[in-house]
C-alpha cells in the first residue's frame, strides 16, 4: 500500500516537472523577440573599452576615439583607404585655403548641417569646440599633450559659414592635426561650462542610464542609444543612425544599428566570432587566432595597413650606448625578417625607418645598416675590443602586461638574432607595464623595446617625438643633435609636400648616422567578419568606420 502511494506521489511530481519544463520552453519561444532583420543590426565584438570618457577634450584612447568619430564630425577627415596627409577630404568644411606664410587657415563650412537635436551647425560651433578644448587643457587630453595652445593663436568667426585659424607658428601638418578625433565638434548644449572659465572638470563623463548626456557630440552618422559600463569597463553599447546626419541622403550610415559587445580577452572574442555570436571581431585577436581563421571558410579576414610601430630604444646617458658605433653595431644585428615571420607569422612588416611604410616621406634607411649584417656588427664592436671570446653584453628590457603584442616572443627572437652575430650577449629582463613606465622616466633601462600609436597621420608624429631634443624628453634617452632639431623644425613649419619630403629624407639619413632608436616592425591591422559583411576599410588612420560597414542582404 505504502509503496503504491509512494509511486503515485512520484508520478504526480514527475507530471508537475514535465508541465513546468514544457511551459518554460513554450514560454521561451513565445517570448522570443522577432526583432529587426539581420541587415539592420550588426553586432561587433572587441576587447577594447572606452578608457575614460567620450569627450574629445579628454579622451585619448583608441576605442574612445573610434566612437567619438562615429558620433561626431570634424572639419576634415581621411578618405577611406587613406595612406597619409594627401588623402584628407572635406567633412564639415567644404573648402579651405592657407596663407602664403602658413599662418592663416580659412575654412568654408558646409551649410544645412544639423545636430541630432535639430540645431543648425555654424562657424560659432567651430570656435566654441576648439576654444573649449584648448582652454580646458585637460591633463589627459590630446590638446595639452599635442600642444594645440602653442600652435593655434586664435580662431576667428569670419561669417556664419567661414572660420579662420590664426596660428602662432607655421605648422605643416595642420590639416592632419585637425583631422584627429580630438578636433570633432561638440554641441554647446551638452558641453557646458560650469564655472566662469573652462576647467578640466567640465569634461563630459559617462552618466548611467543617459547615453545622450554621456557624450557632447551630435553631428556624426550615429547617435549613442545605449551605453552600459560596469566598474569603469564597457559591457555593451548601441549606436543608432542619426536621422539628422548630413550624409544620410547618401545612405550613410549603411547599417542602422550597431551593437558593440566587449570581451575580456582575445580568446573569448575569437570564440564568439567563430561561434557566430558576433558579425565582426576587431581588436585584438592574437596572431594564432588570425592564422586559424584565415583557413576558416565561414569567416573572412580583412587585412590592412597598421600605423603601429615598435622600435628598440638605446639609453645614451651612460656607457656603452653613449657610443654611436655601439648603437649601430646593435642595429646591424637585428634580423627583422626572422621576427616578422616567427613572432608575427607574417602579420607585420619589416620596418627600416620610423615613418611607416606607405606614408609620404618614408625611406628605408636602416636597410643599409644591415638586416642583419653580422660582419658589420663584428667590425664595429672589434674597435671597442669586443669579439667572440670577449662578447659585448647588455640587458634588454621588455614589458609583460600585454600592452604590446607578443612582447616576450619579440624579445626572445631579438636576443637570438643579435647573439647570432657571435659577438653579442643579451640578457633579457621584463617589467610589467606600469613599472616599465617608471623605469623609462628614471632612465634606468639601457635598452628596451617600445611602441607607438600615432596621434595624427603625418610623418611629423613619427619623427618629432623621438628625434627632436624637446619632443623626445618623454623617452628620456638623452639624444640631442642640433642639426636634427633644425631639420625637424623646418619640416614642421613648411606646408609644401615636396619640400617636406626632402627634409624628411635628410632627417632619416641622419637618424641612421646617429642610430638613437632602431625601428623593428610595423604592425598590420586585422579584422575578422562573417562572410556577408562588407564595407570594411583598414587603412593607416586606424579609424574603424562603423558607418560604412554593412551586412549584405
Amino acid at each position, binding site marked *: 500500500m505504502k509503496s503504491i502511494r509512494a509511486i503515485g506521489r512520484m508520478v504526480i511530481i514527475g507530471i508537475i516537472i514535465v508541465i513546468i519544463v514544457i511551459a518554460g520552453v513554450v514560454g521561451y519561444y513565445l517570448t522570443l523577440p522577432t526583432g529587426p532583420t539581420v541587415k539592420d543590426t550588426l553586432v561587433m565584438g572587441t576587447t577594447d573599452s572606452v578608457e575614460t570618457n567620450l569627450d574629445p577634450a579628454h579622451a585619448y584612447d583608441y576605442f574612445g576615439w573610434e566612437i567619438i568619430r562615429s558620433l561626431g564630425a570634424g572639419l576634415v577627415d581621411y578618405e577611406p583607404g587613406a595612406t597619409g596627409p594627401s588623402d584628407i577630404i572635406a567633412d564639415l568644411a567644404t573648402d579651405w585655403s592657407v596663407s602664403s606664410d602658413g599662418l592663416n587657415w580659412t575654412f568654408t563650412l558646409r551649410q544645412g548641417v544639423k545636430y541630432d537635436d535639430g540645431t543648425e551647425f555654424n562657424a560659432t560651433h567651430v570656435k566654441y569646440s576648439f576654444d573649449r578644448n584648448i582652454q580646458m587643457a585637460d591633463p589627459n587630453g590630446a590638446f595639452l599633450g599635442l600642444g594645440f595652445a602653442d600652435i593655434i593663436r586664435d580662431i576667428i568667426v569670419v561669417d556664419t559659414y567661414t572660420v579662420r585659424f590664426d596660428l602662432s607658428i607655421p605648422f605643416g601638418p595642420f590639416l592632419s592635426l585637425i583631422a584627429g578625433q580630438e578636433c570633432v565638434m561638440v554641441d554647446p548644449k551638452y558641453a557646458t561650462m560650469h564655472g566662469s572659465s573652462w576647467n578640466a572638470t567640465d569634461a563630459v563623463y559617462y552618466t548611467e542610464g543617459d547615453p545622450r548626456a554621456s557624450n557632447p557630440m551630435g553631428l556624426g552618422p550615429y547617435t549613442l542609444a545605449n551605453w552600459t559600463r560596469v566598474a569603469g569597463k564597457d559591457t555593451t553599447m548601441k549606436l543608432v543612425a542619426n536621422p539628422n546626419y548630413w550624409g544620410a541622403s547618401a545612405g550613410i550610415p549603411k547599417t542602422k544599428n550597431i551593437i558593440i559587445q566587449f570581451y*575580456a580577452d582575445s580568446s573569448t572574442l575569437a570564440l564568439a566570432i567563430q561561434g557566430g555570436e558576433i558579425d565582426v571581431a576587431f581588436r585584438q585577436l592574437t596572431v594564432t587566432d588570425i592564422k586559424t581563421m584565415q583557413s576558416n571558410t565561414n569567416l573572412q579576414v580583412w587585412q590592412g595597413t597598421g600605423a603601429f610601430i615598435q622600435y628598440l630604444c638605446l639609453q645614451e646617458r651612460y656607457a656603452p650606448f653613449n657610443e654611436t658605433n655601439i648603437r649601430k653595431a646593435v642595429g646591424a644585428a637585428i634580423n627583422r625578417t626572422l621576427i616578422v615571420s616567427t613572432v608575427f607569422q607574417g602579420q607585420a612588416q619589416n620596418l627600416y625607418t620610423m615613418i611607416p611604410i606607405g606614408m609620404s616621406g618614408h625611406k628605408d634607411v636602416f636597410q643599409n645598416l644591415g638586416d642583419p649584417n653580422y660582419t658589420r656588427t663584428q667590425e664595429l664592436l672589434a674597435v671597442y675590443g669586443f669579439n667572440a671570446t670577449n662578447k659585448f653584453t647588455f640587458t634588454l628590457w621588455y614589458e609583460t602586461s600585454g600592452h604590446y603584442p607578443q612582447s616576450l616572443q619579440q624579445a626572445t627572437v631579438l636576443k637570438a638574432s643579435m647573439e647570432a652575430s657571435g659577438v653579442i650577449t643579451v640578457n633579457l629582463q621584463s617589467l610589467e607595464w606600469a613599472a616599465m613606465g617608471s623605469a623609462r622616466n628614471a632612465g634606468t633601462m639601457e635598452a628596451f623595446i617600445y611602441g607607438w600609436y600615432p596621434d595624427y597621420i603625418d610623418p611629423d608624429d613619427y619623427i618629432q617625438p623621438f628625434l627632436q631634443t624637446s619632443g623626445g624628453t618623454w623617452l628620456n634617452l638623452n639624444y640631442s643633435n642640433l642639426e636634427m632639431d633644425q631639420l625637424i623644425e623646418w619640416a614642421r613649419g613648411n606646408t609644401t609636400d615636396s619640400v617636406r619630403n626632402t627634409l624628411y629624407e635628410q632627417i632619416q639619413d641622419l637618424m641612421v648616422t646617429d642610430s638613437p632608436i632602431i625601428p623593428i616592425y610595423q604592425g598590420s591591422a586585422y579584422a575578422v567578419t562573417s562572410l556577408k559583411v562588407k564595407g570594411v576599410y583598414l587603412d593607416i588612420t586606424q579609424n574603424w568606420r562603423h558607418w560604412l560597414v554593412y551586412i549584405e542582404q
Partner: protein
Amino acid sequence: MILILLTMVFLLIRVLPGDPVMLHFEKNANPVAVEQMRHQLGLDKPLWQQYFDYLLGIFRGDLGLSMQDYSSVGQQIFSAFPATLELAIYSMIIAASLGIFLGVQASKAYNRPQDHVIRIFGIVTYAIPVFFLGMVLQLTLGIGLHWLPVGQRFNPTIGIPQSPWYVDLNTPFSTALIPSLFKITSVHLSTGLYTFDSLLEGNIFKFVESLRYLCLPSLTLGLVLSGVFIRLTRSNMFETLRLDFVTAARARGLRETRVTYGYALRNAFLPVLTMVGLQFAALLGGAVLTETTFSWPGLGRYIVDRINFRDYTAIQGAVIVFGLFVSIVSLAVDLLYAYLDPRIRL
C-alpha cells in the same frame, strides 16, 4: 581584520614600482599637468596623511575616486558586485550539491568501482585550471554544439532585466528626505542579479537568457570547486555511516535515503559547511580567472584591470569588499552551525 588587510594593501601597492599619474601620460608628459594631477589625486601628500585621509573616508562610507577615470570607486564596485555575487551563488550551488551528492555516493560504495570513479573525478576537477576547463566547455558546449553563449553576461539585443518596482523620488516626502539627489526622479529596486530581476519583471524569456549566459561560467567554477566537497563529504560520511545511531536507524526499518541524508549527512555536514565558508574565499579568487575567461563583468576583472593601472583607490576598495564578503559568509556559516548542531546552542 579588515583594517589589517586594508593597511597591508595600502602599503603593498605603493611599494610596487609604477606611478598611477605617469600612466596617464604615456607619451608627452607636461610637468605642470603631472603636478596638477598628482595634487588632484592627493598623491602629493605624505604617505601617513594619505593613509589617514583614506581611513577617514572609509568610516564615512566613501571609498574615494578612481585614479584612472575619477569616478566613484564605491559606485563602480557597487555596479560590478552583483555579477560576481550571482556567479558565486550559482557556482557554490553547483559545487556543493554535486560535491555532496557524489561524496555520499562514494562513501556508500566505499572501495568499489563507483567510489574509484568518483574519487578520480574529484581529483581531476580539483586539479584542473579554471581557464582550461572554461575553454574546453566553451569549445564543446559553445562552439561545437551551439547550445550556450561563450561569454558575456546577457544578450545584447534585449534590455537587461529590471524589476518593475521603483521608488518615486518626486513625492513631497522623499524630496524633503533626499533633496534633489543627482536629479534622479526614481530608483529601481533591482538587485543586479539578472536571474532574480527577470523573475521580478515576470519575463521568462529574460530569465532563460540570463541562465543560459550563467551556465558556462558557473559550471566551470562549480566543477572546479566540487572536488573538495567530494573528498570531504566522502571521508566524513564514511566515518558517520559506521556509527551506532546509523545502524540503529537502519534496524528500525527507515528507508536508506532517509538514513543517509536525514541522519548521517546531517551529522557529517558540519565540516562540509566549514568548507563552504572557506571555499567562498577560493571562489572569489577563482572568479578573477573565470570572469576573464568568460568576459563576465564582475569584481575579479575589475581588480586585475585596476592593478595594471596602479589605481590605488580602486584596488583598496575592491579588496575591502572582498574581505567584507568573506567575513560575512564566515559569520553566516557560524550562525548556521547553531541551527544544524543543537550542542552549539547550549
